């Protein structure tokens, strides 16, 4: 079994790869983690991870710049139904559109736009940078045995925009930051987190383990 982590020039690749390697090592049948910019390897992978930091439009350009990558990714996830994990902007790219500075097309796997967060409390800073708890919206195998809710574990966020889904059913968890922030989305065989599981210590590794075990 192989997990392809897509390399399209995003900065946090190293950390993401190391966290997936660590989580995979603790499994009975460890999956091979492969960082790749080869569309064919992505197409053939059993699971796919799309990390992403920076601006929506830049990340979209990064994916488009690798010839054949978007087609391979779409085919693998939407047709072959391979499990997919988008992280931060990698998750935001699942949306219909990004509205960070300019309007940019997303993959349109999850109907909705990526919009600026606007905390109602003026003491709350943007970016939403730091640790926050998660409120469960919908049960999902990747959330199995994870302590959520106000007394649950924390996830590490760094972002100024979030995915505002058109359908409530696509949201798995939210965080509270002067209003609701979309924290985890899930639809069909794809999930995505606005926060960084690779930076969320034990909680993040547990979530990654769940994803690696998930058989949709």
């Amino acid at each position: 079994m192989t997990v392809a982590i897509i390399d399209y020039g995003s900065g946090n690749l190293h950390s993401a790869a190391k966290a997936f390697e660590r989580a995979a090592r603790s499994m009975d049948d460890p999956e091979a983690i492969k960082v790749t910019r080869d569309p064919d390897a992505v197409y053939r992978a059993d699971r796919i991870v799309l990390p992403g930091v920076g601006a929506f439009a830049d990340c979209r350009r990064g994916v488009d710049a690798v010839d054949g990558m978007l087609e391979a990714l779409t085919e693998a996830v939407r047709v072959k139904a391979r499990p997919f994990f988008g992280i931060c902007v990698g998750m935001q790219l699942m949306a219909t559109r990004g509205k960070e500075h300019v309007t940019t097309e997303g993959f349109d796997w999850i109907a909705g736009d990526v919009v600026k967060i606007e905390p109602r409390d003026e003491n709350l800073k943007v970016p939403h940078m730091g640790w926050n708890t998660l409120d469960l919206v919908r049960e999902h195998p990747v959330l199995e045995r994870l302590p959520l809710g106000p007394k649950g574990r924390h996830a590490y966020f760094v972002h100024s925009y979030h995915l505002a889904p058109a359908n409530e059913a696509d949201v798995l968890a939210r965080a509270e930051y002067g209003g609701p922030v979309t924290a985890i989305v899930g639809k069909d065989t794809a999930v995505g987190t606005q926060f960084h599981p690779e930076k969320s210590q034990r909680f993040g590794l547990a979530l990654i383990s769940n994803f690696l075990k998930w058989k949709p």
Partner: protein
Amino acid sequence: MFKVRVIPCLDVKDGRVVKGVNFVDLRDAGDPVEAAIAYDAAGADELTFLDITATHENRGIMLDVVRRTAEACFMPLTVGGGVRTVDDIKTLLRSGADKVSINSAAVSRREFVKEAAEKFGEQCIVVAIDAKRVKRAGGSDRWEIFTHGGRNATGIDAIEYAQEVVALGAGEILLTSMDRDGTRQGFDLPITRAIADSVSVPVIASGGVGNLDHLVDGVREGHATGVLAASIFHFGEFTIRQAKDHMVRAGLPMRLDP
């Protein structure tokens, strides 16, 4: 609920922690990676490395430290010190840093902040500000930016500068009071509050922590969203958990995950 961050800072020179870290049994108290692993286990919310290596040739050692830390610690890591070019940022991020802090290079050329934020995203660009209170003849005091560890005055107003770098794309401000750094008298609360209240991004207070009340003051009085300290943690005076428990008792929202 969103939580206040407690951030230990390690000064690293030529790949070694300056003065060492002695709060747990480490095989090598001078190894930054071992110290990082210990802070990760202790529940630090982020970690900051400040590279004070003087020579260009030894800079590569820091990249190796960052790489090894990122392999072992799954927590946010900020690296600063000597960051002058877009390439410096790129190699640090590629090595596993999550945020990079820019100091003197932003003072001498503000556009660097913009270039960095546009290329890598505002979320990973921290601007470190070293401020010092300056007496003005006949007027009220103000805070000015100092570079080179507080030795070089620039005449630049710290509050105006903070607003300027945030407008250019800084995603966070790391504010160090050069008057308080190393004094153990607590943060310079007036400047911390003045800057925190005048910018939209998070401000991390730094410089002067001598006890746990100081951490509380930094948030409550200084309006910082995170507090950075070094010696009170490195030499076992207080653990990260003691600091957080104290802040919880003071009514601050803290992350206490095991």
